[in-house]
């Protein structure tokens, strides 16, 4: 199954720049469907980016983050070819994990 996470990590000097795009509805719980029923909240709560078992950046998201959320961050201490693990968990307990190699 294809991962819900698309990641691109690029090494630029000593800084790693990471862009992640997650496919997720991010329903806020405030929106109604065409019949007027409230679409229940369904959003990613935590997305973590880790390098060698250590969390580099942890994003705590609320329902105000846009659908198919995008995150960009930068960090030092990694090098080209290193592997990053990106994983998320949402308010329904669903989760996904992927790995990416720094290019």
């Amino acid at each position: 199954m294809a991962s819900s996470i698309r990641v691109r990590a690029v090494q630029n000097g000593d800084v790693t720049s990471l862009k992640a795009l997650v496919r997720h509805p991010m329903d806020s719980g405030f929106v109604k469907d065409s019949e007027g029923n409230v679409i229940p909240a369904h959003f990613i709560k935590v997305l973590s980016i880790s390098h060698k078992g250590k969390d580099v950046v942890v994003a705590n998201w609320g329902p105000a983050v846009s659908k198919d959320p995008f995150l960009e961050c930068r960090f030092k201490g990694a090098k080209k070819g290193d592997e990053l693990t990106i994983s998320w968990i949402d308010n329904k307990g669903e989760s996904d994990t992927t790995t990416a190699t720094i290019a």
Partner: protein
Amino acid sequence: MTDQRRRGFLKGMLGVGVAGFALGAGMVPLRVEAAAAPDASDWPQKAFNTPGVDETIAELYGMEASESDQITMDLPTIAQNGAVVPVTVETTLPNVTSIALLVAKNPNALAAYFDISEGALPFVSNRLKMAETTDVVSVVISDGKAYKATQNVKVTVGGCGG
């Protein structure tokens, strides 16, 4: 939608080397509540359910934030679509441990906050929803103190229509 899925699938296939490695290494299959799933138990339910900027900062960090001109916010002054407003925050403040993004007029102000580890640069970019023309506030925790910067966004179409 189907098309989007297919695209995602095709792109996923490009990453088959990585996926193959993961499977080969005996890791649990994707999409299962794997051991690697992040822990959401620390997720601050209360802070995410607090209206108002100052109240939220107090709830999340337990302190008041002072204005700082060392925080750079990059976001459109006019957003045509409130459902997707790109917000980038960068700061020259030292020893940043956390960055939070708040949307003043949303039902709950807190949109997102980021734990920044020692090696990470104080830079985040994210896309947020906002219901109407509003102030967007970014809060940076530097050396244990809270700093904030504010910028207004004019929203021409609200973000609540989905």
